[in-house]
């Protein structure tokens, strides 16, 4: 009786050990591999955490950001593919809200007569919110969309299988399928620019400085000043996605 119990214990011990070693092999496979060479050598992603501030009261709706974004990132033309775009909100008497975004605001907006009295109207630039808890990363079945160590959400177009789960998961509608590669695409905060010390193209061209780019953590930065100066809101806070695109003067009606 005693001997059998001992044997059983021994068997279990062996089984457990072999499981561990198997796990070790699998895990080892993951971490091994050639050292990756960084093209921007001096850039250390661990010391950054990027965010964007958008002052709604400063946006003039000229659409230069959407235009520059398409040029900088080779975004396909056509009114369905945007990494960033501008929406016009018109809030009418009685609470009715009219939202439009003709060609993402890229060609500007036309005067739009309303039948009811307009309470207020403003432009809202939209882009990927670079969430700290990104639903798109959670749902990706192949690890093609991911959060870099500096908090930017990127898409690995070589790994993406174009299943569109992330398009469904994104509460901000920030993603689209590139018709050429048939993989998911979205704003990268111009990652290829920020590692070189430049600001994203949309921030570079904004004529009224409605967009501010900088570090969300650490000391003084243009974004830190922005966050101190304004009352800040984020889009759909109830979803707990913790966006890193911060809006100043955000109206309740903005979705």
């Amino acid at each position, binding site marked *: 009786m005693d001997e059998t119990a001992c044997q059983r214990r021994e068997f279990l011990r062996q089984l457990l050990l072999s499981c561990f070693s*198997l796990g070790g092999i699998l895990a080892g496979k993951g971490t091994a591999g050639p050292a990756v060479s960084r093209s921007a050598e001096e850039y250390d992603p661990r010391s950054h955490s990027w965010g964007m501030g958008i002052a709604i009261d*400063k946006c003039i*709706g000229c659409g230069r950001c959407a235009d520059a974004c398409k*040029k*900088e990132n080779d975004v396909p033309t056509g009114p369905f593919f945007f990494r960033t775009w501008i929406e016009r909100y018109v809030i009418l008497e009685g609470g009715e809200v009219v939202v439009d975004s003709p060609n993402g605001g890229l060609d500007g907006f036309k005067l739009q007569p309303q039948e009811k009295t307009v309470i207020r109207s403003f432009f809202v630039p939209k882009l990927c919110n670079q969430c700290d808890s990104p639903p798109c990363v959670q749902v990706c079945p192949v*690890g093609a969309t991911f959060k870099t160590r500096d908090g930017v959400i990127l898409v690995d177009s070589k790994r993406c299988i174009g299943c569109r789960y992330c398009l469904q998961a994104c509460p901000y509608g920030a993603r689209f399928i590139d018709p050429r590669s048939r993989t998911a695409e979205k704003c990268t905060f111009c990652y*290829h620019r920020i590692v070189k010390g430049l600001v994203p193209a949309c921030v570079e061209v904004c004529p009224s400085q409605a967009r501010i780019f900088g570090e969300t953590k650490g000391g003084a930065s243009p974004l830190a000043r922005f966050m101190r100066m304004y009352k800040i809101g984020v889009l759909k806070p109830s979803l707990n996605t913790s966006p890193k695109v911060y809006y100043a003067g955000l109206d309740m009606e903005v979705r």
Partner: protein
Amino acid sequence: MRNILNAIPDQIKRLAIPVALVIVGFIVMRHFLVPADFGLYGRYRAGAVDETVSRVTKYAGHKACAECHDDIVAVKDKSYHRGLECEVCHGPGALHIKDSGGSRLSAPKDRGYCPLCHEYLPSRPTGFPQIVSESHNPLKPCVSCHNPHEPTPPSAPKECEACHAEIARSKARSRHGDLACTLCHKTAEKHKTDPRNNLPDKPTSRDFCGACHAEDAVASQEVPRVDMATHGEKYVCWQCHYPHLPER
């Protein structure tokens, strides 16, 4: 150890073979299917970050422009357009910086461009300078009055407009908007102080309009032409056409 193996039932031993095959097959497949750098920093391919980083930068950034065009930047930085970076109007300039001769940048000169920012829209923030381009000197390119690098609004010539505003308003919208009043109306200086006794004249001959509108006239291609011999020979032109807002 031998005892343990003997204690395992036969069917389990046989079952162990396919199980082992599945596990080995999984390890082999994983070796070939999962990229080597997958999982280096997280559940993603570390090389994908470098691929994103290696994308070509097209907008060079405002600091790069100032290195050569410091004179223009100095003017612009004191003007209302100080917050407007060069590449907004001139387009992405990274190629131009690499090869300034081979890749020249342009500037939009048509009337469609400036109104992207400056056309009146109620959604724009209060205080932002806006115009209604339909009535704001139509047909005139913005750059003929405003210097984009120093866009302080020029004071409009108000000599005739001061009294003849209703004519000036029509004329500004017309194809004749660029013509000075005095081109057609010879006006004595005294007209300003004693208008009734020093009336300006108006063209009396058909040849005056014919200088531009005759078929053999030396004028822009866009100017509509008529055959002066057959076209309404009985009348002086302005008896049928209103020159301050002509048809078409």
